């Protein structure tokens, strides 16, 4: 496959995944803000936290005064000057899809294009004003539809695997960012504090990863720090956990580089392989011993190294 096409597919996978995550994040944030005035005493509201998660707090035009909820939502959804807005990301996903139509096929391309045209048009604006939650759900569903088409129409060749690689790597990255921003009392040691406020936070954290239901079913335990972190980081079956994502990335990389069982094809594969086995044998208590923050930092560093190495091995030929 052409290196340029592979690169476009990889980034398309990343952008769509990121857009979907932002939509979910904003929806849950909005939901929380509308729901309760409990637990909002720590400065940032749940919607505003998204600015931190996406590292675009500095880009937000603060001079207009303290950010209103609507201004932040708008900035993160439609602002073309904000590279992290959903519209900007879908625009880039669309450029990548446009350049790879012969690889991804008409269905996937049309759906990406349709979502882009929708977001740039007046219908999306109206929906945003009338019922923002339904807009975020629309975006999320459209991203999932694109993924569904990818899963169900593409052969398992390089096209598929580069898309998958981008998607899952992004998923890990975003989850790290969300955890960093949203874990209550991350900087302080987590003790058995059990206020209703904490419950709301942990629940919303799970919801922003579509993990609330699965968590309850799988853990059969109360929503609190250890269980939530174990589930989101180490669960082997939940498709949005870090361990699951690392395993998919590793698989796709093996498929791309030819999959020699005894050796690794490139540096990215080595880093991922190591990460994956780490996650497989890690105990959640160890994570807290090391410090959740440090753990997440090193995880993110690994992600970035993997991305750099993929770049070096496949795109810069």
């Amino acid at each position, binding site marked *: 496959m052409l*290196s340029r096409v592979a690169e476009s597919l990889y980034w398309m996978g990343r952008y769509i995944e990121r857009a979907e995550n932002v939509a979910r994040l904003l929806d849950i944030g909005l939901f929380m803000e509308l729901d309760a005035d409990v637990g909002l005493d720590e400065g940032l509201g749940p919607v505003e936290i998204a600015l931190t998660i996406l590292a675009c707090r500095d880009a937000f035009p603060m001079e207009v005064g303290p950010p209103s909820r609507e201004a932040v939502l708008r900035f993160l959804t439609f602002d073309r000057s904000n590279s992290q807005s959903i519209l900007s990301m879908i625009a880039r996903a669309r450029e990548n899809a446009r350049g790879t*139509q*012969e690889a991804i096929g008409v269905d996937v391309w*049309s759906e990406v294009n349709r979502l882009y045209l929708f977001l740039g048009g007046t219908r999306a604006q109206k929906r945003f004003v009338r019922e923002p939650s339904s807009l975020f759900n629309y975006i999320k569903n459209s991203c999932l539809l694109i993924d569904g088409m990818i899963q169900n129409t593409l052969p398992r060749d390089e096209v598929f695997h580069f898309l998958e690689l981008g998607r899952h790597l992004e998923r890990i990255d975003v989850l790290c960012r969300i955890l960093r921003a949203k874990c209550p009392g991350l900087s302080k040691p987590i003790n058995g504090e059990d206020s209703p406020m904490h419950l709301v936070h942990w629940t919303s954290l799970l919801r922003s990863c579509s993990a609330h239901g699965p968590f309850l079913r799988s853990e059969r335990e109360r929503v609190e720090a250890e269980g939530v972190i174990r589930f989101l980081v180490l669960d082997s079956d939940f498709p949005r956990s870090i361990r699951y994502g690392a395993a998919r990335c590793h698989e796709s990389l093996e498929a791309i580089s030819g999959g020699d069982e005894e050796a690794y094809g490139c540096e990215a594969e080595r880093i991922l392989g190591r990460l994956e086995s780490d996650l497989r044998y890690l105990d959640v208590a160890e994570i807290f011993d090391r410090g959740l923050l440090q753990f997440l930092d090193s995880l993110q560093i690994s992600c970035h190294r993997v991305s750099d190495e993929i770049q070096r091995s496949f795109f810069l*030929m």
Partner: protein
Amino acid sequence: MQPTHSEESAALFSGYDVAAYDEMFGTENSVRNHYAPLYDRLNNLGPAEIERRHKVADLTMRNQGITFTVYGRDQGVERIIPFDPIPRLISSQEWDRIDRGLKQRVRALNLFIRDVYHNRSILKDRIIPAELIFGASGYRRDCVGLRVPKDIYVHVSGIDLIRDASGEYLVLEDNCRTPSGVSYVLKNRQVMKQIFPFLFEEYNVRPVDDYTDILLSVLRNIAPDGCDDPSVVVLTPGMYNSAYYEHSFLARQMGVDLVEGRDLVYDRGQIFRRTTRGLQRVDVIYRRLDDDFLDPLAFRPDSILGVAGLMGAYRAGNVGLANSLGTGVADDKGIYPFLPDVIKYYLGEVPILNNVETFRPLIPSHRQHILQNLESLVVKAVDASGGYGMLIGPSSTKAQREEFRRKIEDNPRAYIAQPTIQLSRHPTFVEGRLDGRHVDLRPFVLYGEEIFVLPGGLTRVALPKGSLVVNSSQGGGTKDTWVLHDSADHRRASGRPTAGGRA
């Protein structure tokens, strides 16, 4: 017998005036035979229903990104080409003549190009003035003496036809470089099947779907010797080119890579593409890039679209190019007036399709005629295309005519002039009713082991009322073109009178 109409359907053709040559209506105000079933169907559907289906077509095209890029104020805006839902029908007898005429013309064009770059007998025999050839912007000195695979130069051509007031098909332009539009032919057909499936049951329409299969075989045909399973690519200038959709479409339909110049690399006489598994050899390039941009070492050094070294690989016979280099000499507007002579010279045949009468300022009597009749002529710069660099006499201002008068006097060989021809008109869906709009036709011709003319072609419509300019860059639209099989032509016995309210 008078057909009956509901009030709504009468509105569809109300006020329709038959002028120039009308494709649907005969001179005696009757529907031409092969249009009768369509005419009835449209009337039964009525304006609201046609409008609804028209919108579905537009939405499909928009969602699939079937767009072209308009250059201008912004860096380029993507637009869909306006699509007219009323198909154009061509009877099988009409098509037969077109088919034979185009094959004849393309055969002659190829022999001509080969001759220009080798023996030059046509110059020695003084059929065409040598300075016209050497002065043509499409002439490439690099091609002199260069043998191309199978001696085929123009593998893909799109030859523009128009119909004059008598209904005769005339060749308006030969496009022998990188003619575009075939993707719309194929897409328009898909969309028509989606919105008017029942019309296809009524007509026996010749399919166009096999175009890309044949194109692929035409491309494989020019692979370097000894190459059993050639690797073919489509070379595009990139995503911001106005025809990018088409490039991507063709690559997808052929199942080959769509590459940009930066994806290719020259190494030791050969061309390779950069892949995730290293460099892989390329054997045939269907290039949708003008000669000038192909190789910065050989031509424009500022081109970042091409591949440095490509010409070397081509000369060495290590890569096939479609179209070949230098074919622009044949579609130069300065050469065009000589095409009938070219056909006679190489084939010893009478041209089946005629040229539009053309005046050349180089000939004193012609020049006088041109300068005296600027108001009624169309003047074209020989090295321009896309509807640019033209003077359309009847709609020109005095200042524009003065400007062209000076230009022609200063540089007579740079212009030609033709009478303004009232292109034929075709019912076109405008604001809820049908109205006559001028159309032309660009059929596509492929030259591989034999010559193949795609039955159909791109019908372009000048959408503004009265306009004669059909270029998409000038606001033209397209419609599906149906070439009919014999059986369908005679499904209706005779012409029938049209709605009374129309005249």
